[in-house]
């Protein structure tokens, strides 16, 4: 009776007391029948054992000095000392554009803030060396300020459409900015780009070039002009027929023989070759994903677009692609996550990315036998980015699906 009296009221009705609801929930979700109950118990035991084992490894048996000592090697690898200043402006630009984009399109909830704080703290620990902390702080402050400013003053204002265009232009300019900063003056040879920086650069370029390439190939394959259709189809089928590692080896040993000796093309930079292969490979897969999206569009959409007088280019750009791409976001992101992990394969070109850098630490006499720590760290780094991409795509999907039936 007392429980009844104190139970919270919703819409004038007395809610069941929490103890009843908890029992109800446990019954519905965990112990519905004997079989479910058994499954619940076994799963719970496995889960607890797993967490305990992991905790013991992380806090007791593991010796993280291998990571602490090699922070630099893992993040930027053989990147020359004294040239780090080149990396900060692009990172700041990235954080600024990131803050702007999130402010415009992906407002953060409580969980979003928690994740952002976690990532920031982790990166901070990783970078803590010399005045890196201060420089990183500048970037974080910039991102926070831009995000907050965008939320407060831009969203909903008359300037919003223009700021959106600016954000997209900013994203497009990021990559050239990175290259410019790295090459400016007496720049850093690309063969020295390594570690996590290399993975990130390769994946970004792979996506930035591979995605538009894939869209064009998909449109080409759907074209009514036979020559374009055959070319696109031929490209897609040939590229997909070979394993990525094989293409990377080809780029290393065979490609120079096929390039004309114009403007130094036949001595094309090894990192540039990796970028080309990753973008070209991803493009072929993206093309097939996008083709699926194109086919999912009802014919009536094309007919309606024609009937109101839109030309082929306008129909593609305004009607077909927005719908086709939206329909395939999950598959596209899957492809990008795949590419992200495939950046480890550039070992075939003799490049040292994060996994390679991790292996290199193991040859240091102090850290022989520390495979577990190194692999755990590398895995965490790859997981964090892949998971981030996956969550981000969910948000984008939800934002875009407004009104879609």
């Amino acid at each position, binding site marked *: 009776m007392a429980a009844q009296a104190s139970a919270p009221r919703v819409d004038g009705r007395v809610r069941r007391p929490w103890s009843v609801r908890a029992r109800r929930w446990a019954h519905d979700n965990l112990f519905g029948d004997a079989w479910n109950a058994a499954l619940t118990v076994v799963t719970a035991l496995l889960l607890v054992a797993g967490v305990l084992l992991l905790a013991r490894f992380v806090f007791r048996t593991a010796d993280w000095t291998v990571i602490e000592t090699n922070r630099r090697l893992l993040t930027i690898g053989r990147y020359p000392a004294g040239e780090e200043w080149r990396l900060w402006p692009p990172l700041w630009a990235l954080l600024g554009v990131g803050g702007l984009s999130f402010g415009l399109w992906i407002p953060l909830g409580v969980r979003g803030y928690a994740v952002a704080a976690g990532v920031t703290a982790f990166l901070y620990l990783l970078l803590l060396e010399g005045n890196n902390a201060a420089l990183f702080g500048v970037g974080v402050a910039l991102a926070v300020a831009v995000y907050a400013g965008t939320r407060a003053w831009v969203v909903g204002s008359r300037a919003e459409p223009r700021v959106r265009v600016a954000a997209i232009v900013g994203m497009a300019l990021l990559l050239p900015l990175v290259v410019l900063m790295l090459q400016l003056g007496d720049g850093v040879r690309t063969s020295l780009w390594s570690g996590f920086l290399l993975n990130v650069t390769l994946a970004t370029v792979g996506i930035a070039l591979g995605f538009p390439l894939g869209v064009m190939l998909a449109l080409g394959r759907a074209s009514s002009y036979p020559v374009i259709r055959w070319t696109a189809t031929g490209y897609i089928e040939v590229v997909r027929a070979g394993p990525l590692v094989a293409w990377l080896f080809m780029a290393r040993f065979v490609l120079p023989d096929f390039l004309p000796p114009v403007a130094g093309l036949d001595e094309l930079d090894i990192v540039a070759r990796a970028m080309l292969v990753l973008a070209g490979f991803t493009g072929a897969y993206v093309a097939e994903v996008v083709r699926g999206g194109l086919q999912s569009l009802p014919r009536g959409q094309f007919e309606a677009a024609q009937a109101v007088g839109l030309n082929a280019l306008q129909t593609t750009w305004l009607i077909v692609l927005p719908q086709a791409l939206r329909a395939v976001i999950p598959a596209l992101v899957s492809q990008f996550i795949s590419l992200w992990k495939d950046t480890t394969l550039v070992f075939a070109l003799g490049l040292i990315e994060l996994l390679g850098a991790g292996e290199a630490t193991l040859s240091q006499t102090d850290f022989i036998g520390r495979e577990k720590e190194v692999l755990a760290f590398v895995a965490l780094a790859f997981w964090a980015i892949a998971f981030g991409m996956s969550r981000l795509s969910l948000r984008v999907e939800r934002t875009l699906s407004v*009104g879609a*039936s």
Partner: protein
Amino acid sequence: MRARQDARASEGPAVVTTAADAAAAPAEAAPASGPRRPEDPIILCESVEKWFGDFQALAGITTSVREREVVVILGPSGSGKSTFIRTLNRLEEHDAGRIVIDGIELNDDLRNLDAIRSEVGMVFQQFNLFPHLSVLRNVALAPQKVRRVPRAEAEERARELLERVGIPEQAEKFPGQLSGGQQQRVAIARALAMQPKIMLFDEPTSALDPEMIKEVLDVMRELALSGMTMLVITHEMGFAREVADRLLFFDEGRIVEEGTVEHFFTNPQEERTKLFLSQIL
């Protein structure tokens, strides 16, 4: 019945012909391609044929439509009526014969095609709204992109059109959030936004629940009264009786019978017409 129709009745005797008569009469002084005189038909078709593989969908359609005329097209499914109106804005290319819309010959000349598409609006059975765009954007898009009307102006005009079809309050919603009847009215507004001289309706109410048919027919009726030239494929005989100046009955890719509403309801000549009418009435 209607002032407009009365005015037209004085222009000449109501056309009551069968297909045989139409074929016998020389195609009414077919004008060459070029500027249309006001008295010339706005749509002119001569022996239009269309094949899908070995299937002949249109087996020689010869007819014409005057400005401000409302023509209702009847016929069993597969009779070619839908194919016919789709050839009029070249969603289907005709294989033989000629089609002249407002003095412009429909052929492979892309400039002609652009000109015709902007004069001919079309409303589909399945609405075919753009689901990723708001109702307002659906209506404002084409004038903005095709006619280069500034965005603000195009959207203001779109709001007026939504007002005209009776759903101004739905402007910011997306098509998926509207009922079928509302979607079809948006589709009509979208077609009207290009300020067409001719409107084609391909079974506009066939995909609608019964209680929504009326709201769409009301809009179409208002449009007919405003003097729009309309070709309407429909089985709504009440609507046909009310607004049609002329009916065409299609079967097996031909116009089997042609005449006024009165003619069709009281005195159909052809057996197939009688059979069809007995089935749908």
